[in-house]
């Protein structure tokens, strides 16, 4: 018997939970402290926004909302590592990645507030909307990557998927075809340990989720998803490889969903408080803040001032959302086809007539 192939999965981490650097080879981007501070500031904004969105749902001003609490480093790293021309295909809680690309908090609120205009967001027109059918967005990214490759454009398609989503055909199809066709695809599995109530251990017998990329012929790496520097380093490497035609990568970002799955969920039903409490020790904001403080790049005063400013910024977004009037009834018809077929035009007229008591 002979060995025909061997594989290993590397784990990448730069900062420990106290924000201490545990590697010497600090990546170039992390030496730009001003940029690191900017990214951290967006993580803080994200957390303030997230809390506000949950509160809006609790007070009946928002529909079901999927919180991103605990995912901030992974999400923001994705957005910050991409170029505008690249295409992003997310599931439904990666607001941090999207904010970096120009999506506004009011867009997120519009979507969860029951208005399709949220997905006509202020981000790049070639970014995909929030995608509820699990993992299906991964193939949209693969298709985008194929379009870029066929047109010889130096663009990269990035998709995100959860640990649960990594069980689904569409994710496995996407990474498989990316390997087969050498597509510029970066697939980030945001492993937050829970697919609603089902733990990561119930999704697969595989030791890591990253290794699913091995079978597809992609590069793979497992990263501390709460470590901003590690996440960004892994993404920079994967995106650069993809952009230069060297193929795709699967990044498993190991993190933890500190919130319920959505506001319609109660995670206390299925996971112990102790686990969540322990996960808070590893949460992503604390450690990058500690790191920045250790470099004297961020002070408690700055923290307090920025948090207050985030509150004002988010309030302005919330107000913009709350002040946006509903679409007229005919809006449900107007984007079904490029041109409305006659029978649908008749139904549209009927709906308008009903609005006017007809």
């Amino acid at each position, binding site marked *: 018997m002979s060995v025909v192939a061997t594989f290993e999965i590397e784990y990448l981490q730069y900062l420990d939970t106290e924000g201490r650097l545990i590697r010497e080879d600090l990546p170039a981007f992390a030496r730009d402290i001003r940029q690191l501070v900017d990214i951290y500031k967006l993580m803080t904004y994200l957390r303030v926004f997230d809390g506000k969105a949950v509160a809006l749902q609790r007070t009946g001003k928002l529909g079901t909302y999927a919180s991103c609490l605990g995912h901030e480093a992974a999400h923001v790293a994705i957005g910050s590592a991409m170029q505008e021309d690249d295409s992003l295909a997310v599931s439904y809680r990666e607001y941090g990645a999207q904010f970096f690309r120009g999506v506004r908090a009011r867009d997120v609120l519009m979507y969860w507030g029951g208005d399709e205009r949220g997905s006509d967001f202020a981000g790049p027109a070639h970014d995909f*909307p929030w995608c509820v059918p699990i993992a299906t967005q991964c193939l*949209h990214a693969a298709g*985008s990557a194929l379009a870029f490759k066929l047109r010889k454009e130096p663009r990269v398609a990035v998709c995100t998927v959860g640990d649960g989503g990594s069980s689904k055909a569409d994710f496995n199809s996407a990474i498989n075809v990316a390997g087969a066709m050498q597509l510029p695809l970066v697939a980030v599995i945001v492993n937050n340990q829970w697919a609603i109530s089902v733990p990561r251990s119930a999704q697969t017998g595989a030791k890591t989720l990253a290794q699913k990329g091995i079978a597809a012929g992609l590069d793979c790496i497992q990263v501390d998803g709460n470590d901003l520097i590690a996440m960004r380093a892994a993404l920079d490497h994967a995106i650069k490889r993809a952009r230069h035609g060297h193929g795709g990568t699967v990044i498993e970002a190991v993190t933890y969903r500190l919130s319920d799955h959505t506001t319609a969920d109660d995670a206390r039903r299925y996971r112990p408080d102790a686990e969540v409490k322990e996960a808070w020790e590893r949460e992503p904001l604390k450690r990058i803040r500690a790191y920045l403080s250790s470099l004297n790049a961020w002070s408690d005063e700055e923290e307090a001032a920025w948090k207050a400013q985030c509150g004002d910024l988010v309030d302005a977004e919330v107000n913009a959302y709350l002040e946006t009037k509903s679409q007229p009834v005919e809006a449900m018809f107007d984007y079904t086809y490029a041109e409305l077929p006659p029978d649908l035009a008749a139904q549209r007229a009927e709906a308008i007539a009903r609005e006017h008591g007809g």
Partner: protein
Amino acid sequence: MAQITLIEAVTQALAWEMKHDSSVLVLGEDVGVNGGVFRATQGLLQQFGEGRVLDTPLDETTIAGLTVGLAAQGMKPVAEAQFEGFIYAMLEQIICHAARLRNRTRGRMSVPAVFRAPWGGGIRAPEHHSEANEALFTNVPGLRVVLPSSPARAYGLLLAAIRDPDPVIFFEPKRIYRQYKEEVPDDGEALPLDVCFVLRDGTDVTLVTWGAQVKETLEAAEALAADGISAEVIDVATLKPLDFDTIAESVAKTGRCVIVHEAPRTAGFGAEIAARLAEHSMYDLLAPVERVTGYDTHIPLFRLEMKYLPGVDKIVAAAKRTLAAG
């Protein structure tokens, strides 16, 4: 001018549009070197190269999902499901995304794609190769559903389908892929995607059908004529959106209607046409609407499949019942 079959008309339309629009590409299983299992993409790889004719991994989910992504980024993909019975793995991508992306994004993104598949029974094929599942798609907002029944209509409707800015399900009746040839000018002229075609004028009864059953329906009309009954034959061709006006006008003239389709009867697309006749043409009708369809069973394996499919005798009998009724 060359006489060509329906399958050759499909190839001719693909080649025309690929030649004139560099964003059009073909993807599927065996569409490359092999030219498709029915040869629909024969010669396209040689003519247009690997960047335009893509053999995918053997996974319909991949084909459909790539198609959505490609189309959203400005390409015009023509995806092939090797058989209509394999299209089910594509449904989530077609229904949740291809059909819906324009609506979900308020028109920011769209999916100008065609999903082609050989369709229907009667070729002694293996299991899962003979289905008539068009009604699954006619219930989906955002899709167009097209079923040509002649070489000329296959050519013109496929061109229209590729040019359409929305996703089109394009089912090709494989039983008549090579049944006969006709002259189809390769002139890039598309046919309208929103009209029924009146194939035969008549005054006594309207026979409405689509796909391969057009053949049997025309033969039935011939048989009825021999008995002095004048049947009008309508090929619906585009099921969604439905050109009901053409059907209603015909029924206003004849007062009788027989709907013929291969698919199972319950909630088959004939039910939609019958419902619309009940809504809009009740007072034109002299007799109850008849449906000649497949049974509400799975299409049997091929020893029995011809007993499942509607045939000339069943169509003739149904037409005569409408005449006897009023």
